[in-house]
Structures are given as structure tokens and as C-alpha cells.
């Protein structure tokens, strides 16, 4: 018995993940994380992981009223490159990512990520990597407005 050079141990063909980017956008309109999950759904995927980064009502012990996000003019291109890079580096069938800009209230979604993969470990890993890379590389900034009327640029106060 020999294992085929290009095949699984039981002789079946190796499936190469599709690694498809179905959405990568910076948008001024409300983001629907559930729609991202639907968009990455594939017959080959046994796992779909979604992540929502939402505006919370507190930061550093202070009470937050809203957050304003602004983006560099190149942000959409950067997000597209991040998405393609993560798709190429992971075993995803498909991924989708959106980042919101503008004025967001408490509970609104600022960042939505959805990935599908054959198995859960690959899906969790790809979703975490995509979120980390967006936070590291996407030229977006946020100004927190506190309930006492003061505000600050996050990371630059």
C-alpha cells in the first residue's frame, strides 16, 4: 500500500480551499454582520465564524456616548489588500469584511468579519487573523465622545 503523491491517506483528492474574498469595504452605511455570514456560506464549509466589533458604552473607566470613525482616502484599497493577504495565508473557503466610518452610537457595528472554512479551527484562526490585521494595518481613526461632553482621539490622547 502506498499513499498517492497527491491525495489524502484514503486516496481521495486533496481539496484546495477556494480562498475567496466576497466583500472588503469601508462604508458609511450600517453594517449587517449576519449578511456577511450568509455571503461566505459555501457547501464546502463546515464552519462559519463571525466577529462584530461594536461601540461600547465605556472605555478606561469613563462613560462613552458615541464614537466617530474617519478613514484615510486609501483605506478601501488597504482593506482589500488585507483581505486578499489573509485569504492567501489561511485555509478559508470565503471571507467578508466591512469597516464603518462616520458617527456611531452605542451598540452599532464598526467592524464585521465573517469567514467560512471546512473545519472550525481554520475558521477561528482566519477570523482572528483578519481582525488583528485590520486593527494593525487599516488607516482608520476614532474619536470617542464621552457623556460628560469631552472627547479624545483613541491611541493619541
Amino acid at each position: 500500500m502506498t499513499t498517492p503523491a497527491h491525495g489524502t491517506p484514503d486516496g481521495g483528492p486533496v481539496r484546495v480551499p477556494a480562498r475567496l474574498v466576497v466583500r472588503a469595504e469601508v462604508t458609511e452605511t450600517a453594517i449587517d454582520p449576519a449578511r456577511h455570514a450568509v455571503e461566505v456560506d459555501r457547501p464546502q464549509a463546515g464552519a462559519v465564524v463571525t466577529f462584530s466589533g461594536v461601540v461600547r458604552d465605556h472605555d478606561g473607566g469613563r462613560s462613552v456616548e458615541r464614537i466617530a470613525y474617519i478613514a484615510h482616502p486609501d483605506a478601501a484599497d488597504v482593506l482589500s489588500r488585507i483581505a486578499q493577504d489573509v485569504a492567501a495565508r489561511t485555509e478559508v473557503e470565503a471571507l467578508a469584511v466591512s469597516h464603518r466610518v462616520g458617527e456611531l452610537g452605542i451598540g452599532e457595528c464598526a467592524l464585521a468579519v465573517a469567514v467560512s472554512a471546512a473545519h472550525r479551527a481554520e475558521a477561528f484562526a482566519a477570523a482572528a487573523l483578519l481582525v488583528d490585521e485590520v486593527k494593525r494595518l487599516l488607516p482608520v481613526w476614532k474619536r470617542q465622545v464621552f457623556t460628560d461632553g469631552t472627547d479624545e482621539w483613541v491611541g493619541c490622547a
Partner: protein
Amino acid sequence: MVTIRYFAAAAEAAGTASESVQASTAGELRAEVAVRHGAALERVLARCAVLSDGVRLDSDDDPLRSGAVVDVLPPFAGG
């Protein structure tokens, strides 16, 4: 002349989103904007990445092309 684009906290500290300055090196540019905008911008600038035509300026000796677009980018804060 180079065009400087300020973003987020840097734009707030400079009081403008964009301006033109006469500078042929990164050091000259830093000195000129410090004179124009004072300590508030210097404080923010210390935390910013400064890119000329998309390439990061690391040293005060780095040359600036006439007509270059220089971006002053505070730490990213997406998500």
C-alpha cells in the same frame, strides 16, 4: 514645496487637514511645522508615522521630493 496631509488627532492639533511647506528633508519639515503649530502638534507628531508618497520617513536626513505628498498618520484605531 511639499503638501502635508494631517489626519485625526494630527489634523486637530495642526488646525488644518492640509498645507504646503518648503522643505527638502524630513528634518526641515518637522522644524517648519513645529514653528507653525507649536507644542500641541509636536506632542502628537511624536506618536505619528510620517510617510512621503507612501514611504515612511525614518530619519531627519531623508530627502523630500518637490511636489511630494506627506501624510502624518496617528496610530491606527480601527475596529
